[in-house]
Structure formats: C-alpha cells, structure tokens
C-alpha cells in the first residue's frame, strides 16, 4: 500500500499542510498592527503554492488535471480583472470592494456544488439514499455560497449607494418564511431514497434560486451603515461554503482555510458589534441604523462661533485635539483638515487627532481617511489615550463626529449607546463642533454635548467650514 502512492500526491499533501499553516500564521500576524502586512503576504504565499501544486499534482482516479490551458486562461482573466479593480478603486470604496470579492468566492463555491450535484456517486446513493456526507456538503455549499453571493452583492450596492435602505417591517416575516422554506426543501432532498440523480437534478436549481432570493431579502432591510458587520458575517459564510468543498474533495487545505475564516469571521463580526456596543441580533434585525436628520426637541442653548473667532481661539491655544467622524468622510475634507493641522503646528500649537475605533462607517475608517491625506501616523492617538489628558486640552475640534463624542454613553444609562467608549471631549476647556446642522448621527439619538456651556457650534459642510477657517488662520 505504501509504495503505490505517486510522489506528486504526497508532495501535494505536504504543500497543502504548509499552506494551511501559512493561512493560520498569516491571520495571526494580520491581527497585530506591526506584522499585519507581512501576515497578508504569508497567506498569499500559501495560496499561490496551493494553486500551483494543485494544477501540477492533483489526480482524481489516477487522472491528472486536464484543460490546463483553459484553467490558466481563467486564472489570468481573474487576476487581471481582480488586480485592476483592486488597484484602481479609491481607498474610501474599500468596504464595498471587499464585499464584491467576497461575493465572487461565494459564487464560486455555489457553482462547484451545482456541478457536483449531478455527479454524485450512484452506488453511494443506492446504498444510503441522499442522506450522506457528500450530499450534505454539496447542498450546504450551494445554499451558503449563494446566500453569500447574493447578500454580498446587495451589501456592495448599498455601500456604493446604488441601493437605498427601504424601511420594510414585514421583511422579517418574509425572511423567516424563506429560511424555513430552504430548510424544509433541503431536508426533503436529503430524505430521498432509491432515486435516480437525473430525476432530481432540477432540485439543485430550485435550491439555488431560493438561496439567491434569500440572500437578497436577508440584506435588503439592514441599514447601509451596518454593512461592515453584514459583510463580515457573509465573509464567514463564504468560508464555510469553501470548507464544504474541502469536505467534498477530501481536501484539507480547503477545509482548514474555509473553517478558519468561518470561525475567525464569526468572532470578528461579534467584535465589530461589540465595538459599537450592540448585539449581532440587533444589527441584523435592525433596531436603529441609517441615521438621518433628527428633530431638535431639546430646549437648550446652542451657542455658535464665528469662523474668525474659531481661528483666533485655535491659533492661540497650546493643545488642540481634532476628533474626526463620519461627516469628515462624507465631506471628503481630510486634506483640508491636514492642512489646518499643519498650519497650527507651524504656529507652535500641539495638534493631535483622537481616533475613535468606530468613528465613520467601517472600523479603521478614520485611519484610512487620514492616511490618504498623509497625516503622520504619530499624530493619531487612540481615544482612550487622549481621554486621560483631556482636562489639559485647550480646544477640541469635532469635525463631523457625533455619536463618538456623545456624553450620554457615559452618564445616561437609558441611552442606547450607554456604555460605549467615547471621546470625552466635554472635559476639555473648549469644544468646537463642525457640522451642517442639528442632524443626528448613526445612532439617531440626541447629543447634549451641543448644549454644553463650553461647546460652540460652527455650522456648515465640513469642507467649506474648514476652507474658511484655513484662510482665516492664514490671515492672522
């Protein structure tokens, strides 16, 4: 038995082992800031090894891989398109791009299942009926892959702002119905006995159709701002779908890689929810989200500040902290923000940025945004760090942030964001808030910071306000 194994197959297994370990190490390094980039390269190396060696060494019933020319063509096309898109797209469009690529993986998994379904071993089915590991893996791969594909495309559309956020309360019922339907139909397929495969091949297509629709109805009602969480969830779905393929072909690298992403993705989803102080269920069912312009029901005193006063206040301060938020990204004012920071720096003002982990609409949004504008990395501090020093800060400039500077998170136990870590800007000596009006943030709740004694509002689109502020500072 030992002597008859072709060397190629053994080498392939070894390569698969190495690739799996590289995936794990890569993921591990990806979760530390200093090693993240190397981690990504490690996983990529594992992937390339696995692909090349599969083409070279894989055998099925003694047959090597055929159609190599076409396979290489397909890979070239995929590489060309993937690379071009990935390199060209703007930094701020990254989340939808991740969603798009995730959908591609899901589609590939679904296609594999679709093709394997009619090819199942008739002997096996004669013996066990459809209730066997092979059939289960195929069906799960089909369902999960297509849900992931359809869902990712919707998420992509939402983030690219091509699909809106319809308020569809009844969707919850529709979704549950669909889920039950898919489940029932799967069980129906699995309990078939003594059948010919040709007679039930159509069932795979029905299942595909159902799953695609479910993918759409699942994501449609969730608010656009929650898409990062949804993408992370669909990401772990695709991982599981890929693992099903590993089960099918007794292929350990697909199994490990897929399951690894499945479990890491699930944890990541939960972590992302936690960072927003919400539960996953809450995100999926959608208790809040979408934000919008809120009515000002609070009778309080709003104090505005003129651009010239703001310029003077900033120029003669010692310590200034800038708290960027979603509005800065919307206004695409990061470059102006950096310009102002440089000008103040030249005047001898100590300027830092307080980066809240969930400011914006994706984790790390602010880092990416400010990095795009070439803000030096050492100017960015985590909000916790800045909080300690807050009482010594002369002016905090809040640019398009709202929820992440809401004192309710600290002092109002009835608030939905109570307990979320926030930048405690109200402890600084002065606060200048730049936003367009009294619009609410993502959590759609009131922010009493704006009514504080030491808060001054500078209304207007962040880009224009910053522009004015800069010319004012220049002319001082």
């Amino acid at each position: 038995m030992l002597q008859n194994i072709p060397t190629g197959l053994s080498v392939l297994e070894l390569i698969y082992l190495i690739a799996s370990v590289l995936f794990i190490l890569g993921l591990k390094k990806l979760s530390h800031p200093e090693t993240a980039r190397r981690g990504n390269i490690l996983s990529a190396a594992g992937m390339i090894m696995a692909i090349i060696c599969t083409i070279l060494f894989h055998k099925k019933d003694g047959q090597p891989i055929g159609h190599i020319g076409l396979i290489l063509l397909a890979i070239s096309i995929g590489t060309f398109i993937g690379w071009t898109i990935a390199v060209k797209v703007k930094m701020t469009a990254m989340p939808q791009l991740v969603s798009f690529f995730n959908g591609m993986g899901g589609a590939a998994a679904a296609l594999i299942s679709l093709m394997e379904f009619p090819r199942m071993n008739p002997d096996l089915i004669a013996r066990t009926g459809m209730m066997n590991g092979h059939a289960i893996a195929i069906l799960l791969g089909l369902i999960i892959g297509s849900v992931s594909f359809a869902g990712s495309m919707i998420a992509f559309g939402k983030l690219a702002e091509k699909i809106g956020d319809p308020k569809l309360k009844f969707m919850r019922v529709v979704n549950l119905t669909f889920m039950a339907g898919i489940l029932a139909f799967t069980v129906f397929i699995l309990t078939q006995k003594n059948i010919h495969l040709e007679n039930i091949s159509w069932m795979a297509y029905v299942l595909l159709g159902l799953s695609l629709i479910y993918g759409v109805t699942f994501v449609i009602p969730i608010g656009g701002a929650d898409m990062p969480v949804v993408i992370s969830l669909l990401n772990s779905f695709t991982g599981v779908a890929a693992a099903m393929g590993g089960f099918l072909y007794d292929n350990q690298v697909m199994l490990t890689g897929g399951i690894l992403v499945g479990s890491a993705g699930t944890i990541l989803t939960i972590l992302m929810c936690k960072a927003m102080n919400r539960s996953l269920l809450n995100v999926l069912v959608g208790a809040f989200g979408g934000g919008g312009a809120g009515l000002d029901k609070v009778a309080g005193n709003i104090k505005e500040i003129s651009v010239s006063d703001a310029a003077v206040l900033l120029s003669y301060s010692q310590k200034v902290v800038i708290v960027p938020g979603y509005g800065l990204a919307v206004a695409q004012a990061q470059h102006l923000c950096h310009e102002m920071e440089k000008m103040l720096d030249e005047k001898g003002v100590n300027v830092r940025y307080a980066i809240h982990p969930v400011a914006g609409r994706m984790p790390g949004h602010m880092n990416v945004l400010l990095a795009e504008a070439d803000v030096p990395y050492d100017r960015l501090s985590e909000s916790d760090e800045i909080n300690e020093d807050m009482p010594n800060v002369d002016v905090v400039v809040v640019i398009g942030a709202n929820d992440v500077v809401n004192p309710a998170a600290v002092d109002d136990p009835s608030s939905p964001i109570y307990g979320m870590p926030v930048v405690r800007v109200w402890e600084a000596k002065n606060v200048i808030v730049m936003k367009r009006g009294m619009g609410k943030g993502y959590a759609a709740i009131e922010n009493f910071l704006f009514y504080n004694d030491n808060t001054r509002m500078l209304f207007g689109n962040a880009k224009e306000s910053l522009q004015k502020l800069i010319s004012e500072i220049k002319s001082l």
Partner: protein
Amino acid sequence: MQEILSFIYVHKEAIFIIALSILLGIEVISHVPAILHTPLMSGANAIHGVVIIGAIIVMGHADTTASLTLGFLAVVLGTLNVVGGFVVTDRMLEMFKKKK
C-alpha cells in the same frame, strides 16, 4: 440518528480538523484591535478564496462543454476573490504603516 452517528465515525478526522480549526480561528482573532477590523476582514476574505482549488479540480476533470464553461466561470470568480482580496488588503495595510 444512526445516520448522523455513522457520519461522525466515517468522517472523524475531518471533524477533528474542523473542530481544531474553529478553535484556532477564535483564538487567533480574539485580541485584534478595532482599527484592524477592516483589513482583517479583508484578509480573511482573501483566504476563503481557497475555494479556487475546488474550482480548479472541477474544471480539470470536466467532461462536457457545459461543465467546462461553468468550471471556467468558477475559476475566474475564485481568482477574483483571491487576487482582489489580497491586493485590497495590502493596499489597506499600506495606509496603516508608520510614515517617517
């Protein structure tokens, strides 16, 4: 019930591998700082592109034009996932690197 139990026995190694991979995934991710959530999501996204291996196998053993076409499509999509995933992740991480 009997079927499920037999299933477990036949696939015991695969099930062990799955269980260990799940635990590893949890263990490896659980301390990631929030700012890395997006790149990590993207990096994990690239890794499940390993589904391309399955696509290659299917296509490499395709016998009809129909299955060859579907297989071709699967390989293209799988490659998109892999290449796009890794390149996008790398671009994101580039933004995080310390500038001098």
